[in-house]
């Protein structure tokens, strides 16, 4: 089933066009890596898909026109992890994760047993239940990232959009995160993550979408998308491309001359 379909998306930021008629569709079961150089329009694409910035073109979420969809209903189809791991107040981890249930509750209603179950499951899965009572602002970067993902999991949406989720994490946390996203996809959800680390993208994603200057340059399996010629023309780097048991290996070596 198509969870998100974007057709001819145009956006401008401050009068400058950023996306030029971008079209794509993602299905359940996919772990899509959104790659491209700085300023290519990856974050803008995610934010436009969420309706956070104005855009022209058609966006359909779960087959329905997103423009006509109430914000709360959209939030039940689509969870979002912003790039900044913002936690405004020293609230407890448990409370922060429980925020994920907001789109499922009528206004002013408390949490019911089903909500609590989802929250517990999300905390267990992200292994944050051990420090559920600690203020989330006191945690380390890796712990914060896990808590925020647990919040997104508690939202229980079939589609997860993540903006550079691996930024600022150490290798083991990065790999744990990519593995989790791959698992979520395998369970029948869809994850779309913008990524800068081509190695991680090549190894874990089932599909890569390469964006350059607001246009999709390539879309397909990592091996089809990541070619030496494209890395040279889009990123301006010479890279080593290889194969390992766990998947494709991409290692940028030098700036292309």
């Amino acid at each position, binding site marked *: 089933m198509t969870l998100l379909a974007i057709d001819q998306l145009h956006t401008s930021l401050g009068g400058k066009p950023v996306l030029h008629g971008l079209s794509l569709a993602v299905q359940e079961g996919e772990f899509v890596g959104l790659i491209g150089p700085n300023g290519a329009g990856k974050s803008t694409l995610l*934010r436009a898909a969420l309706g956070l910035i104005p855009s022209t073109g058609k966006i359909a979420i779960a087959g329905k026109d997103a423009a006509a969809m*109430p914000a709360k209903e959209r939030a039940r189809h689509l969870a979002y*992890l*912003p790039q*900044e791991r913002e936690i405004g*107040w020293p609230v407890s981890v448990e409370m922060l994760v429980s925020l994920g249930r*907001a*789109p499922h509750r009528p206004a002013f209603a408390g949490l019911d047993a089903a909500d609590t179950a989802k929250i517990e499951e999300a905390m267990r899965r992200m292994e944050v239940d051990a420090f559920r009572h600690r203020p989330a602002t006191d945690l380390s970067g890796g712990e914060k990232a896990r808590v925020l993902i647990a919040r997104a999991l508690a939202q229980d949406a079939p589609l997860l959009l993540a903006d550079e989720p691996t930024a600022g994490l150490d290798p083991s946390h990065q790999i744990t995160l990519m593995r989790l996203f791959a698992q979520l996809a395998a369970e029948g959800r869809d994850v779309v993550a913008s990524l800068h680390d081509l190695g991680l993208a090549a190894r874990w994603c089932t599909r890569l979408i390469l964006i350059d200057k607001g246009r999709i340059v390539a879309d397909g399996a990592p091996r089809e998308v990541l070619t030496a010629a494209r890395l040279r023309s889009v990123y301006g780097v010479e890279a080593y491309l290889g194969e390992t048991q766990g998947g494709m290996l991409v290692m940028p070596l030098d700036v292309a001359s």
Partner: protein
Amino acid sequence: MSETARYRLLLIVLGAATFILFLLSLTVGPAALAFTDSIAALFSSKAGAIALIMQEIRLPRAILGLMIGATLGLSGAALQGYLRNPLAEPGLIGVSATASLGAVIAIYTGFSAVFPLGLPLAALAGAMLAVLVVQAMAGMKGGALTIILAGVAVSSFAGAMTSLALNLSPNPFAALEIMFWMLGSLTDRSMTHVWLAAPFMVVGWVMLASLGRPLDTLTLGNDAAASMGVDMRRVQFLAVFGTAASVGAATAVAGAIGFVGLVVPHILRPLVGSRPSRLLPASALGGACVLLAADILVRIIAPGKDLKLGVLTAIVGAPFFLWLVYRTRRNLL
């Protein structure tokens, strides 16, 4: 004890304290009345001097103390949650000063004498202007520094315009009343003021109180909150109008009273697990406690001198503010 149980206990304690301070406020005054006499006179239908004092002088004063305190506490908590900034407060971001300016223009031009509702409406318009200007300056992701600087600019400008309006008034008393508008007082307010301000304050409260869950969600930032179904335009509307209506009405009848909206949410935040939605009712009760206590103290410390409320709240609030700036100065820059 679970967090929820602790929260309920806190609300009960604050509610009881508010009730006790309200009663105390009714029993403090230059006329030495016995407690039982005064409480009996409060419900008496006979028009004796004591009944008149209790029903027409002390009751409106206590009611306004309660309502204005609740307004300042609630709007402080709501603004802090909305701007995700512990330094946001109606006084600091210039809302009180511009509300004062609006009220001053309405009163001293004689507009409010012709059209009584003009007083709270003008104050509301002034308050709204401040929130919008500060927000436009600071933007949705405005740092503490931007908000404070914009607030300082708005406050000083509104203060200067208030002084100008009062200085230019042909009434010789007007210029002496700058102090009232800058520091606030509840002396000899009447039921007329209660009826004038209460509807606006209540409407503001309802708007701010409905912000509970969106403010919780805003803990994760604007984008995350919007992605979770929070209608940011509605939240902005409620925060701006709720603050403007309640603080505008409060300022229109009692002048600008600073620091309550800053100190109260800050002290109560750890007690509610920092949760913005729980901070709202707690701060409303806490604000009522603080203002009632301050209004009792001005009558005890300097009877007959008409000490302004803002003097007391600033004596406590300003050092607290300095401490807060000291603690958060890394985030300020």
